[in-house]
């Protein structure tokens, strides 16, 4: 955690409050957040829980790279919190917390949206859904390429 940037992969429950505190600052008139939660239905199947698998070291480097990209586009002073869960969550569990502290709301909304979309496409993270019928399946995702 340095210079208004926090990137982590956590096996402990994620804290939204900690994220909002971290990105708050006297110069930040806006705090924007995205909170991902486990949904109870996917493609018609009743979901009981999701297991998240992560290549930690590469994912963290990717988070830092995305943070640098966000700051380049929307301002070097953005305060950023990117944390993803690793392990199993039941329905309603929080899988990811992204928070952006910024002087104004526009760059906060844009940076927050950018970060979640890029994480979904570029971070080495996988999810395995567990269904009420006892079956489990890895969710189809996006093929990685070099950036």
């Amino acid at each position: 955690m340095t210079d208004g940037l926090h990137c982590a992969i956590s096996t402990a429950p994620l804290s939204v409050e900690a994220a909002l505190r971290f990105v708050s600052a006297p110069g930040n008139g806006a705090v924007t957040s995205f909170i991902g939660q486990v949904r109870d239905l996917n493609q018609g199947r009743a979901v009981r829980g999701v297991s998240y698998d992560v290549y930690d070291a590469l994912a963290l480097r990717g988070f830092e790279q995305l943070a640098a990209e966000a700051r380049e586009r929307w301002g070097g002073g953005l305060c950023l919190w990117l944390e993803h869960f690793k392990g199993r969550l039941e329905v309603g569990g929080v899988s990811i917390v992204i928070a952006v502290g910024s002087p104004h709301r526009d760059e906060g909304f844009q940076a927050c949206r950018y970060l979640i979309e890029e994480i979904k496409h570029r971070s080495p993270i996988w999810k395995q859904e567990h269904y009420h019928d006892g079956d489990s399946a890895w969710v189809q995702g996006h093929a990685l390429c070099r950036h």
Partner: protein
Amino acid sequence: MQIRLAVFGAFRGALAQGELEFSLPDDARVQHLRQALKAHLRRLHPEGGDDALVDRSAFADVFEVLDEETPLAGRQGLAVLPPVCGG
């Protein structure tokens, strides 16, 4: 040289131990590791079905995703990464 390859996501079903070891020539590149992984999975599952997943997967070390021509020698934390879906 001996190459240790970590596996994630959908590969964990077929390779529950989470890591594989391959013996490859010293000048082997990512494309050779991809072929070795396919051959290994075919031996495990002769009925097939894993080639498409290997084709859609990337290979990486601890720093970055690698292209097919990248030499493997000296790379740390090699891993095969199936299509991703975080968040």
